[in-house]
C-alpha cells in the first residue's frame, strides 16, 4: 500500500474523533476543520511513526487538544467578537436523523435531547466550555486542566460548575416538558 493510500485510510479512520474533539473545544465547525487539517498534516510529517502505531489515537487526541488550546489563546479576542455575530448553526444531520426516526418517537425524542445538549455545550462561553470538555470528554483532572489553561484551580472548578449549571438548565427545561 502506498504512503498516500495509507495516509488516506488513516484520515478516514480518525477524522471523526479529531473533528469531534476540536469542535467541542472550539465551538465552531470552521475552526475545528482548520485545526483537524493541521493535526493530520502533523501526522503526515511523521507518517511512519504515527500511522501504524497503536498510540495513534492518543497522540491525535493530545495534538488536537493542544492545537485547539493554542488556537483559542491566539484568536481569543477575534473569536469573542465573531461568536456574537455567528450563532451556533443547526447541527448537521439533524433533519436526516429526524426523518429516519419519524417512526420511532422515543428514539427521535432522545436524539432531539442529545442535539439540544450538544448545541447548549457549544453555546457555553469559552471559559466554561473548554474546561468542561477537557474534564468530561478528555478525562482530565481539575489540576491538569488548570495547568493546561494556566489558570487557578479555583477558577477551573468555578467555571466547570457554572457550565454544568447552564447545561442542567437545558436538560431540565426540556426534560420537564
Amino acid at each position, binding site marked *: 500500500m502506498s504512503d498516500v493510500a495509507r495516509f488516506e485510510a488513516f484520515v478516514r479512520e480518525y477524522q471523526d474523533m479529531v473533528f469531534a474533539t476540536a469542535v467541542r473545544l472550539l465551538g465552531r*465547525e470552521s475552526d475545528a*476543520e482548520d485545526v483537524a487539517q493541521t493535526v493530520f498534516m502533523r501526522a503526515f510529517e511523521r507518517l511512519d511513526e504515527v500511522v501504524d502505531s497503536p498510540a495513534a489515537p492518543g497522540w491525535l487526541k493530545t495534538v488536537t487538544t493542544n492545537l485547539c488550546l493554542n488556537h483559542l489563546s491566539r484568536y481569543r479576542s477575534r473569536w469573542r467578537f465573531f461568536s456574537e455575530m455567528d450563532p451556533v448553526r443547526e447541527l448537521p444531520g439533524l433533519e436526516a436523523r429526524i426523518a429516519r426516526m419519524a417512526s420511532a418517537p422515543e428514539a427521535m425524542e432522545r436524539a432531539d435531547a442529545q442535539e439540544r*445538549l450538544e448545541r447548549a455545550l457549544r453555546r457555553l462561553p469559552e471559559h466554561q466550555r473548554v474546561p468542561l470538555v477537557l474534564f468530561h470528554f478528555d478525562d482530565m483532572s481539575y489540576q491538569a486542566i488548570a495547568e493546561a489553561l494556566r489558570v487557578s484551580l479555583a477558577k477551573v472548578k468555578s467555571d466547570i460548575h457554572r457550565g*454544568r449549571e447552564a447545561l442542567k438548565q437545558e*436538560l431540565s427545561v426540556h426534560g420537564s416538558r
Partner: protein
Amino acid sequence: MDPADDADLERLLDRELKKLPAPRAPHSLLPRVMAAAAGSNAREVPATGWSTWSPAWQASSVAVLLLFVATVAWLFSAPPAQVVETTRTAGEIAAVMRVFWDVLLQPVATYIFVLGLSLALACAAAWAALELALGGASHQ
C-alpha cells in the same frame, strides 16, 4: 453550593455528555487534508547536488568537463585553419555592417526618429480632438 448536589450533577452530566454521539467530520475534511498532503509533497524539493548523483553520472560529468577544458585549451593554443577562416569572415562582415551604418543610416537616423515621433503625436492629437468632437459618444 451543596457538595452532594454537585457530585450528582457531575455524574448526571458526565453520563449524558458521554452518551452524545460524536460529531461527524464534514465531507470536505478528507479532500482538504489529502490536497494539503499532496501540496506538501510537491513542495519538497529533491536534493540535486553533485554529491547526490550516482557514481556513474559523477564519472561521466567529470569526463565531459575534462573534454571541454581540453578542447578549449587546444583551440587557443593551435587553432585549426577552418576556425581562423571563420573568425576572419565574421570580422569582415562586421566591418561591412559598420560602413553601411556610418555611410547610409546614421546621417538620416535623427530625421527618421523625429519624423516618427511627430507622426505619433499628430495621431494622438487627432484622436483626442475626435473624442472631444464626438462628446464621448463612443463610451456610451
